[in-house]
């Protein structure tokens, strides 16, 4: 059974249809990439899944449960977590406290704060920020803030992790280590949906790619297929792939 299922989902903002008749099924354990041009509705889709927006029509099922219209904290409690496209750590709290807040009201609901403080070291080490644990989150570099967001999301031990352009703004080395982390999280059994603009990342990480265009499904399939698809090339990639992707 699918862990996440979108059923003929619509979202209209006044006269603008941001998402139209979108259906998607994500089996448990999959690493799904979502691509599409700017304004295609990718982030809107994540906001619908996480409860920040209410669909105009259609249903969202998480693990067989109807979740459309539930508030974000209820959906989070079911095991959904996310990072934000525009990084939003809790700036005035320390790096360690950010991760602690990630877990305290979800995976660590029934444990003591002291115990959760210790357990928060795990996700921090995963993203390589343990040496910054005592620093205020606002003092981190942009790349480190992205890592912190990922650590905070991981601390909640989600069944479904939604990554909204987690690689954007990172340098080459950081992208490499971020890819490793995502792969590691996925191997540990977490279902991952990632919105990504970097074609190379999509090709190396994702098992399946979903292409969104003007709020509609354009195509879905294996990463290789997607990159060959003429409509995808026309609407999104814009040029032949062979010249774009360099190995390395």
């Amino acid at each position, binding site marked *: 059974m699918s862990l996440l299922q979108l059923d003929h989902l619509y979202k209209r903002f006044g006269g603008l249809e941001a998402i139209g008749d979108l259906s998607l099924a994500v089996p448990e354990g999959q690493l799904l990439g979502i691509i599409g041009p700017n304004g295609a509705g990718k982030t809107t889709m994540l906001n619908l899944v996480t409860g920040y927006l209410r669909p105009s029509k259609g249903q969202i099922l998480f693990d067989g449960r109807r979740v459309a219209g539930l508030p974000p904290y209820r959906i989070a409690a079911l095991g959904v*977590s996310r990072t934000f496209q525009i990084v939003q750590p*809790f700036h005035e709290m320390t790096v360690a406290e950010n991760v602690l*807040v990630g877990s305290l009201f979800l995976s660590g609901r029934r444990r003591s704060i002291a115990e959760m403080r210790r357990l928060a070291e795990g996700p921090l080490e995963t993203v390589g920020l343990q040496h910054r644990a005592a620093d205020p989150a606002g003092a981190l570099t942009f790349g480190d803030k992205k890592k912190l967001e990922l650590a905070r999301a991981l601390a909640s031990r989600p069944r479904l992790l939604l990554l909204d352009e987690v690689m954007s703004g990172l340098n080459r080395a950081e992208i490499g280590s971020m890819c490793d982390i995502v792969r590691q999280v996925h191997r540990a059994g977490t279902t991952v949906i990632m919105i990504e603009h970097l074609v190379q990342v999509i090709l190396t990480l994702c098992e399946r790619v979903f292409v969104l265009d003007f709020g509609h499904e354009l195509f879905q399939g294996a990463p290789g297929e997607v990159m060959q698809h003429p409509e995808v090339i026309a609407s999104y990639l814009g040029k032949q792939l062979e010249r774009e992707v360099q190995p390395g």
Partner: protein
Amino acid sequence: MMPKARVKAAAWAALAVAVLAAPALGSPVLNDWNVRICSLMMVALSWNLTLNAGLISLGHSAFWGLGSYAALLAANRLGAPLPLSLLIAALAGSLAGMGLAALTGNLRGIFFAISTLAFSEILRVVGLMTPDLTGGAEGLYLTPGLRPAPAVVTFAVALGAVAAVVVCAGLALTRFNLACRAMRNNEDVSKMFGINPLVCRVQCLAVAGGMASLAGGLNLWHGGFLDPLVAFDLHVTVLSQIAPLLGGIHTLVGPVVGSVLTVFLSEGTRIGLGASGYSQLVLGVLLVVCVLAMPSGVVGLWRRVLARRARP
């Protein structure tokens, strides 16, 4: 426990003992200062609690006045002794806080602030329009025979302030505190981590409202007279913010130090400059200076000095 932490705990304990023992000296002047400082401390700590959750309250005089009236009516109408009347006052404040949280829903920043100001004004007008209950503009006296000795009232106020500090110190260790701080930093994001902002706001305003109303109730027993203008005086709201801002917001020691400084400054300028209008002018200027020049207050300044000295 680390030695430094032990020194801190000892200092807090000594301070508590001093404040609680002072009424036994029986000095009216000392008692008056004690009541002023301790009651301001309670509303300052209460205001700091709401600020910790990102809620800027301009309505603390509402809680203060509500607590005053609750204590007055409990004493006059039901013959409630001081402790029971204070319990009723605190409960009234808590309920009002929860109601305010529910009514303001997810209003933030200036929108929340304005609605709390309106809340206070509404209560003042209601107080003026219900003379049968509140005595209206003429006001009401606490039945004279009910009032205990000034030293007893002073001790009660001091106990209230110590209790407020203990409650704040205890809350600082809870996950409620982390939820409040996360909410202050980013309410939308906090939702994604299982925090229900409404529940958090209701809890926060229940505690803060109860604390400020308790202070109002205590002040009624000290002053013995109420009218809606005294009870819902905007001055209480202003002082409840000046004290934490002067001392240092988002800390426990900040509102405590700030309350002492604020009372000393307002009394000092009143005595030194004569008319009380000057004391408000001084406090007003001070508030601006604090916000602009030392946003972390006296406590923050002190910590920076210590940190600079500690550097090799």
